[in-house]
């Protein structure tokens, strides 16, 4: 085998854990952030609809 290719192939196994860790951790960070934001958004939207109902009730009472 060509010595350059042989050198490249010889690094595959030792470097694999670092490459897998790099991709996995990066995806994890992005995923956790997106999940946190989407959950927070849904929670805030629910709070907003409850508040809007309360405001509507108060307005109805005033009239």
């Amino acid at each position: 085998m060509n010595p350059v290719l042989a050198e490249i192939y010889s690094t595959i196994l030792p470097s694999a854990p670092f490459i897998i860790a790099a991709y996995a951790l990066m995806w994890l960070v992005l995923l956790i952030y997106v999940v946190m934001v989407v959950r927070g958004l849904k929670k805030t939207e629910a709070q907003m609809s409850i508040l809007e109902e309360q405001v509507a009730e108060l307005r109805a009472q005033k009239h």
Partner: protein
Amino acid sequence: MANAKKSHALPEGGQWPDAIAFWAVLAGAVLTTIGFLMAFLYAGPVNGASVDGMPEMIGGQMVSSKLLLSQKIFYFHMPVAIVSFGALAFAGYYSVRFLMTKNQRYDTCAKVAMEISLIFVVCTMITGDLWTRFEWGVWWTWDPRLTTYLILMLIIIAYFVLRGFIDEPERRSIYSAVVSIIALVDVPICLMITRMIPSSIHPVVLREGGMTGDMGMTVGVCMIGMILLGFGMYRLRFRQVRLAQRVQALKDELEEN
């Protein structure tokens, strides 16, 4: 009329970018997944740094350089770093706008942009550090690029620490805007440092012969994916923060009545 026009130009949750934010995140996820597959299945393993300074015939091709498997980290490392710089540019812009107008909305925009930049800076650090550990055998080295990027990360962390310590909204926004602009000043230094200090051991794509078509295509797909992800994440978070502010304002109003 002029006031109406001004308030219309102010960034707000529910504007047209929010309609595409979710799809941008989805498209970003799809494109980065395609980019990931391209990095391993499409981009060749042999082309990049020099092969004993001389081109060599490998697999019927004249190859002037070789890339080890660890180089696959580059396809995501560079795009996340660029998105972190982009988010900082937006944060800097909104900070300047805040200092000019004293409108809290711009402070909110800058805060969210800084948050996005921190997420991408962390991703850059993770990918870069794992590459460094394998290629250079150390977890950290005081290379100029690494050092300036670490300073950038520390400035961003300092931004959030500062925000947590100051209670008065206006003072908090002014100090935060200044820190955000300082972070932006570090961006071109960080970008150009490998050119200004040639002894830097951080790889530079152009200095080392540029990218071949397959590498360029792969990094391009990852870059578009990451930009879409960054944009979508920014808009989703901005919408959430604005909604939370409105909920708080409504609660305060209800309590007063």
